[in-house]
Every structure is written in structure tokens, then in C-alpha cells.
């Protein structure tokens, strides 16, 4: 089995105005894997990624986050980034009033990248090459997402975290993003992917976790999750056979709760 890159152990975390969001979460991401993290709105997926990156001051409250064995608790986000973990945040986090070129240039602030690194990334997203002098805020949603991923790649991370990269994008663009993720993984990149689009996520992922109300309720290899009846009904929108009385329950029952 490959080495463990990211290890999250019994993490409890929250915000100042909402003390407990994660209630003891443990997960692990191994080198070369694509791991999907599924869960409905407000389950705490973003909170988990933010906790890993050190973006919530003084969190996690309890538990440990380790990257290649090194404790991340209490480190600054920029230091964690320099260790080799990159996050493409929810909402993309581009700088709307900087040009596309400047957005890319920033990724080289802490650690310079070479011309050929840049070319490799731009070859992956050729639109960005044409848009260099345009303000990033004027890019389309799909182009902004590509910019966000491109910037993260220029950091040359060993682990890439993505928070809902498909949010708000047209199906064709979503497919494009996912095919990029798949080829990145084939080239050796390890990914932790938070997604609402469970179907796509479970297609690229090797392993998956389901987070509900701050707890992991299910985990397993992606193909097993795809077959799981609860996952099918809640995240894949598969219609179950009608109940004996002939109508569907208005709310799906979660067998794991």
C-alpha cells in the first residue's frame, strides 16, 4: 500500500460563533489516490478542508492533522501551502482585480516556478494563455475555475484539495474539469475532492467518505459507494422501488444515522 499523505485523526472543529461543526472526523489520503468527500449542504466539508489548511484560527479544537507525518495543527495556511498541500477553495478565491497573468504570478511568490512549469500548466488550460492581460474578475465561471486550478498547480503540491470545483458550471465545463483531474491523478497527483456532484466524483475517485452533520457516516472504495443504496438515493438521485403503499417517502430515510 502506498504511503499515507494526509491523516486526519478525531478532529473536532468549529467557529467562534458555532463551536462544534466537526464532531470527531478521521480520514486518510494515500499517495496517488483520488479521495472523494461527499455530504449534503452544511455537513462540514468545507470546514474540514479549512481546518486542514489552518484557515480557522485556533482550530482544530481536538484531534490531529498530519501531512507526511508532520503535524499541521497550529501552522499558518501559507506555511502549510509551502509544505506541499494546496487548496482550491470554495468560490475559487481568484483576485478579480488582478490580471490573469498576475494571478498566476502570485503562485510563484513563495517559491519560484520556471518558465516550463508555467508552460506545462498553460498547455493544460490554453484559454488562460489568451487571457493573460484580462482582469480575472471578467473571466467566465469556468475560466475562473481553471485559473484557480492552474494557480494551485503552479505551487507544485503533492496533495491537491478541491472544494466543489464543479459548482455552478455547465455540464460540458464540469466534464472538462473532471477530465483534467483524472489526468492529473494519472500523472501522479494525489487529490482530495469535495463534491456535490457525487456521480462524477465517484467516477474519478478510488475511495470515498460520506460526511453528515459533522460525522463520517460511511466510507469505502468508490465502486462500493456507488452501489450503496443510501448513497444512490441521497447523492446519486436513483429512484428506489415504490413502497408497498405506492408512494415514495417524502424524505429518504438514512440507514446509517
Amino acid at each position, binding site marked *: 500500500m502506498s504511503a499515507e499523505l494526509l491523516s486526519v485523526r478525531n478532529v473536532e472543529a468549529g467557529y*467562534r460563533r458555532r463551536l462544534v461543526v466537526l464532531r470527531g472526523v478521521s480520514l486518510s489520503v494515500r499517495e496517488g489516490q483520488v479521495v472523494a468527500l461527499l455530504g449534503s449542504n452544511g455537513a462540514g466539508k468545507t470546514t474540514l478542508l479549512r481546518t486542514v*489548511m489552518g*484557515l480557522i*484560527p485556533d482550530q482544530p479544537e481536538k484531534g490531529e492533522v498530519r501531512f507526511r507525518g508532520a503535524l499541521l495543527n497550529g501552522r*499558518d*495556511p*501559507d506555511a502549510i*501551502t*509551502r509544505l506541499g498541500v*494546496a*487548496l482550491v*477553495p470554495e*468560490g475559487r*478565491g*481568484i*483576485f*478579480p*482585480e*488582478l490580471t490573469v497573468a*498576475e494571478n498566476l*504570478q*502570485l*503562485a510563484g*511568490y*513563495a*517559491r519560484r516556478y520556471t518558465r516550463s512549469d508555467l508552460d506545462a500548466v498553460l498547455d493544460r488550460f490554453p484559454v488562460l494563455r489568451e487571457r493573460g492581460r484580462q482582469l480575472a474578475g471578467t473571466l467566465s465561471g469556468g475560466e475562473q475555475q481553471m485559473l484557480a486550478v492552474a*494557480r*494551485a498547480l503552479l*505551487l507544485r503540491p503533492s496533495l491537491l484539495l478541491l472544494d466543489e470545483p464543479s459548482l455552478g458550471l455547465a455540464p460540458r465545463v464540469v466534464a472538462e474539469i473532471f477530465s483534467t483531474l483524472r489526468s492529473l491523478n494519472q500523472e501522479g497527483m494525489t487529490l482530495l475532492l469535495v463534491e456535490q456532484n457525487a456521480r462524477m466524483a465517484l467516477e474519478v475517485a478510488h475511495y470515498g467518505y460520506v460526511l453528515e452533520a459533522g460525522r463520517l457516516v460511511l466510507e469505502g472504495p468508490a465502486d462500493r459507494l456507488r452501489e450503496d443504496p443510501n448513497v444512490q438515493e441521497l447523492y446519486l438521485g436513483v429512484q428506489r422501488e415504490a413502497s408497498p403503499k405506492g408512494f415514495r417517502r417524502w424524505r429518504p430515510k438514512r440507514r446509517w444515522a
Partner: protein
Amino acid sequence: MTLAAQYVANGLASGGLYALVALGIVLLYRSSRVLNFAHGDLCTLGAFLALSALQAGWPYAASVAAGLVGAGLASAGFYQVLVRPVREGTVLGLVITTLGFALFLGGFMAWVWGTDTKPFPSPMSDVRVYRLGGVVISELTAGSLAAALVLVALLSLLVQRTPLGLAMRAVAQNPVAAQLLGVPARRVLAATWALAGMLGASAGVLLAPVLLLDPFMMLDPFLKGFAAAVLGGMDSLPGAVVGGLTLGVAESLFAGYVSVKFKATLSFLVIVAVLLLKPEGLFGRPFERRV
């Protein structure tokens, strides 16, 4: 006509210094969303430090540099020790923090240097004058305006053309996203505060020969710089420069043609008028929440 030109020339000269003060205020406001009421006192501190260096026999340039570095360090230190920890709190908490620091600095300067006004030397003379047509302008005035414009140009080069400037703009727009790219946002902000302190100190050093130096020298120029910043839109560096020059010229014309006594009131009128008519200022964009 020459009279009007004379007023404009005088106005530009003081406007250049208002612009320097305004730049310091705007630099901090747009990167930290902090209104730094201690900015004026940091300017004065820089001038006092330079004066002490001069009195210790240092050459003029080295003394000014010492003043700039001292004020920059004080400003960055203030950010690291007090502003950053309080930032999580309320806007009111921040305002009170900067007011408190202003009072502290005022007291500190009175304690170290005394409250009596002191002459401040300048390599430029205020009796030697240049004549352009009918307009008379002293070497000191012309030199101050030139120095202010050079500093503005250097600042814009730094902000627009260097990696640090790019990081400063990024951190101002979205500090979290900047950190996620490995930019040490806190250090960049500390550098921004240091830069604002240095700009302020240079305004202090340029004003001190004219106003004479005492711990409260910057009270009035700070208010003018603040008005200029509001006029320019609080968020915009070019806005601060245009705001400063406009305010300087408007004030000088007002003093010449209307009333010298109410000259000081004009900056207050400008603030009120801008807030009523165009709250986003000349160069600011309409208010949007930062992401």
C-alpha cells in the same frame, strides 16, 4: 490671472503633502480596513527621530532615512502587537486601538522631546525663490512638491511593478486566497504598515520646516490627508493623490478669494459633501463587501 496661478501653485505644493499623508491612510485602509488615527502621530514621530539624528551630527539624508525607518518600524510594530490581535474584534475596537496609540505616541513625544515648537532644518531655502511668469515659488515649496511627486511615483512603481507590490494588492483583495498561494499575508501586511509609516514620516519631514515641529504638528495635516483620502475614495491610491492635490488647490483658492479664516473648515466640508453626494469618492468603486 497671475494671482489665480499663484494660488494654484501654492495649493499644489501643500496638496502634494496632503497626498503623501492620504496615501498612508489609504494604503492601510485598503489592505487592512483600518482607519489609522495614529497616522499623523507616526508622521510626527518620524520628524522627531530625524531631528534627533541631525542634532547628533548625522548628515541630512541619513537623518531623514533614520526618521523614515523609525516610523516604519513603529507602524509595523503597532500592527503586529496591537492591530492584528484586535482585528478579529469589532470596527469600534480597532478605532479605539488606533486612537489609543495616537494618544500614547503624543504623550511619548511630549515626554522625550518636550512640547515647545522646534525649528527643523531643511537643505532647501524658503527665501530663495523661483519666478515663472508672475508666479513666485520658494525653493522649499518647489522642493517639497517635487519630493512628494517623486515619492508618489516610487510608491506606484513599488505597488504596480514589484512582487511585494503584487502581494500587497492580492492580500488587500483576498488575504485568505493569498495565503493559499503561499503568500505570508501577515508579513506582507506588516510591510504595508511599515511603508505607510515611512510615507508618513517623509510627509512629516517635509512639513516640519514649514510648520515648526512639536508633538501636535500633524493634527491639521492629518485631517487634510484624511479628507483627501475620502475625496479620492479611500480605496484608491491614484484617488489619494488626486484628492490631495485637489484639496490643496481648492483650499488655496478658497483662502485667496473667500476667507482665510475658514480655510481649515474646507476639508471638513469636503468630507461631508463627498459622503452626501458620492460616498465612494472620485476614484472608489461603489461599496461591495470584500469576499
